[in-house]
């Protein structure tokens, strides 16, 4: 029998009951999951001893996601993520957990919000890593179908996530990534996409990011058509000092669709941050 070194606990932050998993010691590394999924996506990072020997890796489930609770009264509201709520939640988690100048790494919506963190909280953070970062994605499909009584939300969300991955990624890991999507609550993916496709347009602001205060790394899988390499290049072109890498053969969920290939790209970045 093998027991993984990951531990999971619940933190009460404000009115929220937030589930988080962690492993390792050292520099705090806070990992942000994608829209409509949860912290399980970072299992391979949490289990990588070459990372956890110098990093305390922490992945929390946003309220409404994974094992975190939705707020009281959730049944009476439409969940909608906004830039302010997202950034506020991350910084509150960091403060309440007592994490000193952590590295924050986020994917997709998380890759977007690290750009907002770079603008508003650069001095409180050691470095930022955006996976599949784009400043905005125009709507190209109607996310309302993912929260419709005559469409099975789990199946539809899973089908959307499935296509965003690389055909070169291992079947087992791709289908587990789909599974996480199939387990999301009704309307949660759609509510996250409100931030991603409607409210969270950060294009006009990213020019003000100062990477001399907080370094910004951008890693993007080449098969992603939601936040494509071209979208990330547009960010890198506007942010002086941003370091961008295109990850060959990977898609929108690099950390979970092909963990081994992703770790090959992440380890040198974390090593550079550690030595800086």
């Amino acid at each position, binding site marked *: 029998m093998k027991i993984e070194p990951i531990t999971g606990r619940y933190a009460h932050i404000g009115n929220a009951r937030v589930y988080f998993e962690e492993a390792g010691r050292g520099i705090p590394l806070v990992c942000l999951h994608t829209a409509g999924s949860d912290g399980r996506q970072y299992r391979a990072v949490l289990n990588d001893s070459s990372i956890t020997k110098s990093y305390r890796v922490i992945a929390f489930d946003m309220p409404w996601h994974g094992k975190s609770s939705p707020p009281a009264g959730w049944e009476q509201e439409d969940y909608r993520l906004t830039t302010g709520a997202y950034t506020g939640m991350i910084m509150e988690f960091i403060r309440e957990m007592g994490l000193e100048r952590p590295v924050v790494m986020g994917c997709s919506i998380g890759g977007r919000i690290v750009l907002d963190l770079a603008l508003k909280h650069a001095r409180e953070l050691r470095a930022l890593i955006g996976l599949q970062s784009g400043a905005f994605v125009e709507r*190209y*499909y109607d996310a309302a179908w993912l929260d*419709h009584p005559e469409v099975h939300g789990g199946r*539809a969300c899973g089908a959307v996530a499935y296509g965003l991955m690389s*055909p070169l990624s291992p079947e087992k890991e791709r289908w587990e990534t789909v599974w996480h999507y199939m387990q999301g609550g009704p309307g949660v993916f759609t509510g996250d996409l409100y931030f991603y496709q409607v409210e969270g347009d950060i294009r006009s602001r990213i020019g003000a990011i100062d990477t001399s205060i907080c370094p910004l790394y951008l890693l993007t899988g080449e098969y992603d*058509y*939601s936040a494509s390499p071209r979208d990330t290049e547009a960010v890198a072109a506007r942010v002086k000092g941003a370091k961008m890498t295109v990850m060959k053969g990977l898609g929108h969920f690099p950390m979970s669709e092909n963990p081994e290939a992703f770790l090959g790209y992440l380890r040198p970045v974390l090593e550079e941050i550690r030595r800086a």
Partner: protein
Amino acid sequence: MRWGRGMNETFMLQVGDEQYLLKVTDGKLALEKGPFVMRSWRFAIRASRESWEKFWQKTPAPGWHDLFALLRRGDVRFEGDQRVLMAYLMYVKLVLAAPRDA
């Protein structure tokens, strides 16, 4: 295929000028080639022959590897009852990608 279980619908696939009707009966697929006159379908998926040829490569290039990848680039059109398409999206995606392994 498990994702088509319970599906009883006919949808149209257009490949350039050629039309196909895909009739699904509880997940079993029957393919009929057009041209058709006044035939009904629940939804249609239309793209150019060049787009489908890129989509059907054994290892498609980035941006050509998924139905919604074609949608994002504006190379595919959906018509008809989009709810049914979304309800069976996983099945439809897998069926459309099946020629890659043929």
